[in-house]
């Protein structure tokens, strides 16, 4: 598959403050999650690839064309900014139709598209209320609506789930996945890991303005195979289970947890470990209550990469 968005040695400073440093990557079709703590450079990166700001070094191309001041191309891109700001006294409907007007469409088309977008984000009922009277979640949804209303091929969302309640979040996640199904390219930034996990496996980790990792979550997990993995098992007889593990070389450490019946096993080969586990339970008639991997989520990957 060819890359939709390409960056080459992208670097950006604000005065003498580093925003982004030496980012070279390719983003392909589908959903890509940009992850990093606040102030890591996510927004800077998204502003650069949407041509909001100009890089000090390096270049960005979207579908082979440079982005900076390349306006005709922007009709293929939808962007949902992070800041919670709107034009003063507009209603939701006016906001959408006004912005759609900038795509040089006929007014019937504008109305059709605005209606559709409002329906998608479920704001149709409130479309004639002033944006100022919207709740935080409604404003967030309206921002998403303006980024998708013109039916772009590339959708770039900066913290779209911020300030949404669980139901609103679920809806937006579902929406983003639907768009992926339609063959679009979606770039989503977030600092909340489970959100990204729920949407995609393709992630880019940004921290201190640098790319720490890029690729499939599992691929990244494999990359750091040298980092041993901890599995927590709660069962009826942890000490008996522990005996069975000790003979295997892929088990590095066996600990008993603070809670009753918890066994913590550290391994450097999950595949072998989990391949063995069910049969151990069955053979020894151990009753399992729980198996979890405390560090098998993005947070752990993240913590490991940024050295915590």
């Amino acid at each position, binding site marked *: 598959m060819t890359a939709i968005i390409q960056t080459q040695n992208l670097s950006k400073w*604000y005065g003498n403050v580093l925003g982004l440093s030496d980012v070279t990557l390719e983003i392909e079709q589908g959903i890509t999650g940009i992850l990093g703590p606040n102030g890591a450079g996510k*927004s800077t990166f998204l502003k650069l690839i*949407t*041509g*909001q*700001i*100009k890089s000090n070094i390096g270049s960005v191309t979207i579908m082979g064309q440079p982005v900076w*001041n390349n*306006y*005709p*191309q*922007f*009709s293929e*891109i*939808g*962007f949902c*900014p*992070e*800041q919670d*700001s*709107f*034009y*003063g*006294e*507009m209603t939701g409907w006016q906001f959408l139709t*006004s*912005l759609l*007007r*900038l*795509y*040089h469409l006929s007014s019937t088309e504008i109305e059709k598209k605005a209606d559709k977008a409002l329906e998608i984000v479920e704001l149709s009922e409130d479309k004639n209320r002033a944006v100022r009277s919207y709740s935080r979640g409604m404003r967030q949804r309206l921002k998403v609506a*303006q980024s998708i209303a013109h039916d772009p091929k590339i959708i770039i969302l900066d913290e779209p789930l911020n300030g949404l309640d669980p139901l609103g979040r679920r809806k937006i996640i579902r929406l983003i996945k639907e768009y992926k199904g339609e063959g679009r390219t979606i770039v989503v930034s977030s600092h909340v890991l489970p959100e990204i996990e729920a949407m995609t496996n393709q992630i880019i980790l940004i921290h201190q303005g640098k790319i720490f990792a890029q690729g499939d979550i599992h691929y990244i997990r494999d990359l750091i195979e040298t980092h041993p993995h901890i599995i927590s098992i709660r069962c009826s007889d942890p000490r008996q289970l522990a005996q069975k593990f000790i003979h295997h070389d892929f088990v590095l450490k066996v600990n008993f947890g603070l809670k009753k019946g918890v066994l913590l096993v550290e391994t450097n080969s999950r595949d072998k470990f989990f391949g063995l586990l069910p049969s151990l339970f069955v053979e020894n008639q151990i009753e399992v209550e729980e198996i979890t991997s405390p560090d098998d989520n993005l947070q752990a990957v993240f913590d490991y990469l940024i050295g915590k």
Partner: protein
Amino acid sequence: MSPSFKRKIGFFAKSTKDVFSFFFSLAKKSRRTKIFFILSFLPVFMAFVVKFSQIFQLSRDIEGIYIFNNMIIAFYLQFLILILALFYGSSVTSEELEGKTLTYLTTRPVSKSAIIVGKYLAYTALIIFMVTLGVVFSFLVLNLSELRSVSLYKILFRDVAVLALGLMCYTAFFTFVGTILKKSIMFGLIFSFGWENVIQYFPGSTQKFTIVHYLKSLLPSVSRGRFSFLLFRLEPSSTGTSIFMLFLIAAVFIVLACVLFTYKEYILKD
């Protein structure tokens, strides 16, 4: 003209038109515009008062056109168009930055120049409309008895044209100021009511450094009445030069604003 250039021009024109209609309808509805609208309509109210008092013989009889020329136009020229141009001109970029809404514009398929030009045109059109309406109404009210005289309409047309040129020119200038300065109001006030008010009375070519000089050159010199001192020592430029200069000034500042806006980076704080 090469076809690609033509296409570019066509795209620019379309973008400008769209930006124009965006901001024209936005500004039309805002509360600020309503307040400024009332402000620019107060002379009409004043004209009514004058007219009534004339009908009921409450005041000495002054010709309607005299009041119109000396007071209404002085009010518009020396005060109102400056205030309007200052606010709307500096709004072109400042309000986008203050409200952090710039992103919504710069991610659309419209060039940055088109944003500036379209918004500038929208605001200028709006305030020209406001002022023209006020002027025309006050004119009609004040000259109610002489509405058949054609020469009067010439005066009206000339005055409206001068005010429109003034708005065009000042708004362009303040658009430019708003693009480079973060806090443009203080500078704008000092420029409008300091520089423009003082330098215009300087002798020789000095006064040609003000915009108001060219505007006043287009109006006949007023000899009677209290306001004649305002034209004190005007050494008028010719009509042709004045109109040319006004257009030139407007064009230069708009082009400068576009260039600056296209290449300057605006960083919206979170």
